[in-house]
């Protein structure tokens, strides 16, 4: 096999290097590997493709996907992605950088993480935030672990059944192996008041899986009286207009940054965020950037409070997280910079307007019943009176992904600023025709 564009060594280079090392061949570098472990077979992989062949191959796969107009949320929201963002995030200096351990040549990364931490604090109203988590569900699972680690001899958490199913499932997974007792309930306040003796934490959604904006009035006091911590799971885009976790008295806020301009991308990469009150700062998992000065007094940024982390504390670390989702945090930071306070207000107003228009128009068709009275922003659930499969197929045939059925049998819709009035009217017409 001839040369390969990612391998710069010529045969002459290889000969020079082997000579310096003092071995006769490349295979001799593996003399310490027991011979029967050296793979002698042909790897069951396709034959090497040229760049154009690779492109054609993926274009072929791309053609097997159907691009739909997305009117479903459930943890992944189809917001518009401003064109500036991919230009910034694809800059090599950001994209191909390592974790910013060498702060002298990583001020770019460190600076945007500091800005991200600041924006997350401002959106949640809380005191400090970390550099990022893998996604919203893992951030929720880590928050649950944090509650247990921050309260003495307490090992139970109450999880609202109104969180998104994949969030609950991820919490259950982490809790199972950590030996944490998880109580999933629809009646959070009652459960806090009555049951669960060794309560460490309670996790509730800011906007629940039915799209309803929840009121947590009095909940924090109740949870704190029991000596436990309150965690709120939030959509950060909505936090620009709904009451913050801090205002409800939550100790920790987590969620997924995807709604801040990250493409749907079949579920990832996204980015989790986590913020908390100052008292819990040293219990945060993952990386944290702090401001300091260099030897000459210049303001600069470093990874700090590393005594919490796995590379220092090993099994005693607050978490095992190492790589996080840094570039996706940049994605959100650029997004929030572009949008600013007015952009986020307007965006949410557009979502609200579109969602309420569709909601009312769908009810007017007589094919649905209203089941939730609470206020909603961009996502809502209705109880179908029609044949759901038939409805979904008709929508799909017209190029819409809408009306996804929840596990309770409701159908869910989500409208963002991307969607036009014409599209909403089309959906309504399709519903009428069922």
């Amino acid at each position: 096999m001839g040369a390969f564009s990612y391998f710069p060594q010529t045969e002459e280079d290889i000969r020079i290097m082997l000579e310096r090392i003092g071995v006769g061949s490349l295979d001799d570098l593996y003399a310490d590997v027991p011979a029967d472990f050296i793979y002698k077979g042909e790897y069951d992989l396709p034959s090497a493709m040229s760049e154009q062949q690779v492109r054609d191959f993926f274009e072929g796969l791309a053609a097997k996907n159907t691009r739909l107009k997305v009117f479903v949320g459930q943890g992944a929201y189809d917001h518009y992605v401003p064109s500036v963002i991919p230009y910034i995030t694809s800059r090599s200096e950001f994209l191909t950088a390592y974790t910013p351990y060498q702060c002298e040549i990583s001020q770019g990364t460190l600076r945007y993480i500091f800005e991200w931490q600041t924006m997350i604090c401002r959106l949640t109203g809380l005191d400090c935030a970390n550099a990022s988590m893998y996604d919203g569900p893992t951030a929720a699972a880590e928050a649950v672990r944090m509650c247990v680690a921050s309260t003495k001899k307490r090992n139970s958490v109450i999880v609202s059944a109104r969180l998104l199913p994949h969030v609950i499932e991820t919490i259950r997974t982490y809790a199972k192996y950590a030996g944490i007792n998880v109580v999933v309930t629809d009646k959070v306040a009652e459960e806090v008041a009555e049951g669960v003796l060794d309560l460490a934490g309670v996790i509730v959604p800011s906007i629940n899986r039915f799209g309803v904006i929840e009121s947590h009035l009095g909940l924090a006091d109740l949870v704190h009286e029991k000596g436990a911590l309150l965690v709120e799971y939030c959509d950060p885009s909505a936090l620009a207009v709904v009451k913050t976790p801090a205002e409800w008295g939550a100790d920790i806020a987590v969620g997924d940054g995807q709604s801040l301009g990250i493409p749907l991308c079949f579920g990832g990469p996204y980015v989790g965020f986590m913020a908390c009150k100052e008292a819990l700062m040293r219990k945060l998992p993952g990386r944290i950037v702090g401001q300091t000065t260099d030897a000459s007094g210049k303001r600069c940024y470093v990874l700090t409070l590393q005594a919490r982390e796995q590379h220092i504390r090993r099994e005693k670390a607050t978490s095992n997280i190492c790589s996080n989702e840094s570039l996706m945090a940049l994605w959100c930071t650029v997004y929030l910079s572009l949008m600013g306070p007015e952009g986020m207000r307007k965006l949410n107003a557009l979502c609200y307007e579109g969602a309420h228009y569709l909601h009312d128009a769908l009810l007017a068709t007589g094919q649905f019943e209203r089941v939730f009275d609470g206020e909603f922003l961009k996502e809502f659930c209705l109880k179908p009176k029609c044949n759901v499969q038939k409805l979904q197929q008709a929508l799909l045939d017209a190029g819409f992904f809408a009306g996804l059925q929840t596990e309770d049998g409701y159908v869910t819709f989500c409208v963002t600023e991307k969607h036009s009035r014409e599209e909403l009217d089309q959906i309504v017409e399709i519903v009428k025709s069922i």
Partner: protein
Amino acid sequence: MKYYDKLIFELSKPGRIGFSLPETKTQLPKGNIWRETPTGLPEVSEVDVVRHYTNLSQMNFGVDTGFYPLGSCTMKYNPKINEEIANMPAFTGLHPLQPESTTRGALEIYVGMDKALAAITGMKHFTFLPCAGAHGELTGLMLMREYHMSRGDAARTKVIVPDSAHGTNPASAAVCGLEIVVVKSRENGLVDVEALKPLLGPDIAGIMMTNPNTLGLFERDIKEIAKLVHDCGGLLYYDGANMNPLLGMVRPGDMGFDIMHLNLHKTFSTPHGGGGPGAGPVGVSDKVLPFLHIPRVSGFHGNFGIILRAYAYILMLGREHVKMAGKLATLGANYIKESLKDCYKLPIPTVCKHEFVFDGLLEDNGVTTLDVAKRLLDYGFHAPTIYFPLLFHQAIMIEPTETESLETLDAFIAVMRKIAEEAKADPEMLHGAPHCTPIGRPDETTAARQPILKYD
């Protein structure tokens, strides 16, 4: 690199906007559940944003700007075609809950990657849910526990980790509710089989191994270790962080490993992104296969965009070039090692794999590993991994990767030799390094004692 001192908040001016949205007269309701406090987001124009982040990027080092001899991190070149493919709207526009009939292309990518990774590693199948290496470790250990629980073997709550292991290994074990038992390495840097034997018993869930280990040494007793661990009823976990030298040469499945993870952002060329997103798919042998679907460790289908990139890389490599990847990485590491061992202390002189460890400068002039690392930045190189593994006090861990040319390695070697000379002539100058970077050494003590974690 030029120093630039602004935060986006400091560019803010009331009334400026950087967005473009349709008009609306809708006002959101007030009171009760609605936010009344300001969001505190910056008010900047689009050009402010572009200049600000471009300026920030210019204070950053990346694979595209220079060489990273960063041990255990496998900072190889990130092919550009992968980026283009991952940004195709037919992939980025897919909602994770769309009906299968509309995502066939995406699903084929998972099937293709599963098959390719199985071929490369000798494992049976992979789960793609984990979003990073440590996340893969955690998932793998969950599978280990499921395996034992399914056999009613609940007493297996301890996992053996060598003293040379990556910090994530013990941390992942702890998050998974396992107790850690450390097995020592011998003088030659390999796991001490005699020290391992008494640790094995009915309470052992398994062992986590990195092979080659963090000293870049192939654990040649792996066959015996695998037999001992399996005989005691435990499983073998393979930490794929160091898979690169084995790429195209040795398959973990053939060495007796039952569970492993791969770092797609290391071995399979996806960009590190300043600390992610990565992907840490976990592969299993037949024995563990029935449990592969159990742990739901992330939201949807893992980091699809990263999996796509890695698949494109594998297709470029193909069955022909894959055979050279590991060998060339190993060649580069040994070349650097042999070229510098007369100025840097080489505690373990044998042939290494993709990486090796120096224990500081050969001659003691009071110049530390940190000084050497910081001085490298002045010469346009990233620093190696330093003070790890913990086995040596002045550890300098170097890993070149197969995408670095002889000329790059020679330039790095020349600078390392020059720094060794500087250490003799002017140690003070090295204590103060770096001198040519946008900032000098930071005051990390104050950063940790009086943390400022946000802009006020």
